[in-house]
């Protein structure tokens, strides 16, 4: 080093340190650890999704909330439709004829990723991956559920493998799952509403509707968890009203069902008891008469008179019971008629809120900034009204929108 001065060596040392720090920063910014290229071997994995929702190469793979690897490749592939997918499509479309058959090819996305964390243990048979998001406004990433294993069966640890390990891909979580679930729920409610209109108040309808409401309540619970994580405004705007509507609809159903069941079944049971005792009386009377005729014929007429009285009494009582049965039916019909408008109104509002919830979810997915800035796009000034029909009918026009601060509601 005789040709260099000390100041030059010190300067060169600083340049080398700066270059090393820049390299380290570049690795960090690229989502790699600085030792990734020299350090522990990675395990290469592969999964297939129907929709990767903007996942990019370099995105993190998270397990139990910490980064354990990254996405190394994404490409479109052809993939056959499985039984499970076919079932989900049928459920979504509501008509098996519209769904593509099992085995038909469609475009899918193959995602390759590497797991680099040497301490990670996972079982390829039970592990799953799904598309996730780091917070509502964060980037898209892969979430690995490492599965489970028995103590005697050691899980896969880092090792050199020629072929990538295939890991089952799961449906999108959170908001997408909620959107997926909302469609079928709304369709079920609609079909039940149609039934309610056609043949109201059969117990079968009640059961079906109750089941739908339970499904929606489960959905609301998952939406609530999801929404609470990030923004309370959406919770108060969508989830709370939806929940209260569900409670109202469920209450209406319960009350109506209780009234019908109590009033109808109690009376019906009384009817049966009366009927049974009447039949028993009649049989007894007839048996007595037959016995009397057989034993002592001179006394037959007296016994037959008794039997005749018994039959007449029977007829009268049957008439009474028939009348009371008619009353019961009228009563039940009245209960149904009284409850029907409330129930239908509740269901209409439920259907409306469900639609709004679906729209809100779709908007958030399209633009998460909705949660920060709100969304007034559906609530802008009203479009021009086509008054042609109103005018030619002779009616006056409806009132137009007024100043929001006009003190009106």
């Amino acid at each position, binding site marked *: 080093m005789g040709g260099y001065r000390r100041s030059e060596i010190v300067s060169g040392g600083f340049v080398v340190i700066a270059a090393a720090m820049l390299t380290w920063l570049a690795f960090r910014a690229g989502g790699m650890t600085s030792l990734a290229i020299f350090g522990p071997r990675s395990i290469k994995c592969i999964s297939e999704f129907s929709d990767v929702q903007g996942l990019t190469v370099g995105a993190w793979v998270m397990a139990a909330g910490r980064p354990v690897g990254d996405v190394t490749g994404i490409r479109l592939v052809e993939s056959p439709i499985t039984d499970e997918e076919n079932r989900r499509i049928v459920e979504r479309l509501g008509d098996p004829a519209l769904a593509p058959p099992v085995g038909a090819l469609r475009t899918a996305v193959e995602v390759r990723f590497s797991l680099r964390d040497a301490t990670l243990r996972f079982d390829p048979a039970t592990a799953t991956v799904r598309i996730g998001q780091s917070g509502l406004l964060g980037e898209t990433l892969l979430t690995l559920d490492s599965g489970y294993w028995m103590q005697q069966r050691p899980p896969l640890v880092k090792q050199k493998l020629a072929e990538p390990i295939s890991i089952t891909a799961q449906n999108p979580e959170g908001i997408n799952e909620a959107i997926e679930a909302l469609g079928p729920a709304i369709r079920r409610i609609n079909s039940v509403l149609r039934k309610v*209109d056609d043949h109201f108040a059969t117990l079968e309808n009640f059961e079906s509707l109750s089941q739908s409401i339970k499904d929606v309540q489960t959905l609301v619970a998952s939406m609530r968890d999801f929404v609470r994580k990030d923004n309370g405004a959406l919770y108060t705007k969508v989830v709370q009203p939806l929940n209260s509507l569900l409670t109202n609809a469920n209450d209406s159903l319960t009350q109506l069902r209780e009234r019908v069941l109590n009033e109808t079944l109690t009376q019906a049971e009384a009817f049966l008891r009366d009927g049974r005792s009447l039949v028993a009386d009649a049989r007894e009377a007839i048996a007595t008469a037959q016995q009397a005729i057989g034993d002592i014929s001179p006394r037959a007429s007296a016994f037959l008179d008794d039997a005749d009285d018994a039959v007449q009494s029977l007829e009268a009582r049957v008439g009474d019971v028939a009348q009371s049965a008619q009353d019961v039916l009228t009563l039940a019909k009245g209960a149904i008629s009284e409850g029907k408008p409330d129930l239908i109104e509740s269901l*209409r*509002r439920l259907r*409306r809120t469900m639609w709004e919830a679906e729209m809100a979810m779709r908007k958030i997915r399209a633009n998460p*900034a909705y949660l*920060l*800035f*709100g969304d*007034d*796009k559906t*609530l*802008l*000034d*009203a*479009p*021009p*009204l*086509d*008054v*042609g029909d*109103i*005018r*030619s*009918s*002779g*009616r*006056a*026009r*409806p*009132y*137009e*929108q*007024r100043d*929001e601060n006009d003190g*009106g*509601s």
Partner: protein
Amino acid sequence: MEARDFPLTARRALAMALAVVLGGCSLGGGGVTPIRTHFNKGVYFQNKKDYEPAIHEYRLAVAQNTSDYRARVNLAMAYEAQAALVAKRDGPAGEIKAMRALARTQYEEALRAQPDELRASVNLAVMDWEAGQRDVARERLRSLASARPAEALPLVSLGALLLREGLNEQATATLRGAVSRDPADPDANAMLAEALRRQHKLGEARAALLRAAKNAPNDTSVLVALGRLALEADQPEQAAGDLARALYIDPDLLEAHLLRAEALSREGDWVAAAEHLARADQLSEGRPAAEHQAIEQRLRTLLEKHLRADPSGNTAH
């Protein structure tokens, strides 16, 4: 400004600029009026002909303020429109009857809250007329017209009912009276034009429609009526222009597509005509089957006629 102050000032300026940008973003670019009241939301849905949510919003508005007669009138009109929709789809008669009864109740409640409410009175008279009580309805409108000499609305409504009865000359006289009360009223002018058109007074009818269009430039029904009138007067070029204006305001106006297809077809531009018919065909999918099939048939006939004449399809272009 001293040099050491600059970073702080710059930071403040940057923060303010950011706040302005974020504020602008939250308003969707600025100039947008958000709607928060139930009444305005109801109007929004009603204008989109989405009556179920409109009814829901108006009901909430009425629940918040039971003396809100404007919400009650609009609610009644939404009920009526929904009943008409159900009737068009051959829905249950009981539901239609119930909705009309609800509409009547709301009009009556509006009049109870505001006894001189004109729109509710006029619409109740129209409901009476539609229920078969024609004399009662006409008398009610006449007495309203004499009690409110400055208002054109009762005469416009009376004229429209007379037109519905086919009494074109009486309707014309009544509607002229309405126009003399308020020469700028687009409804009066549009209805007068319709009455004149039925008597084949096309020039006068066009003048009345132009007055209506001047005072209600976004009224698509007036523009469509202008187009229809021009077609009747055998002026397809004029008709195509009027209908293009209507379609500029509302691109999904089925009737405007059909009429413009007719106008363009007469002008020889059958390719553009076919495009309008194809769009009309799409838009008519929710309509009654006969109407939808008629449009399809029109499109098929047009295409067969011209493709047979010129299989390359280059006649017009």
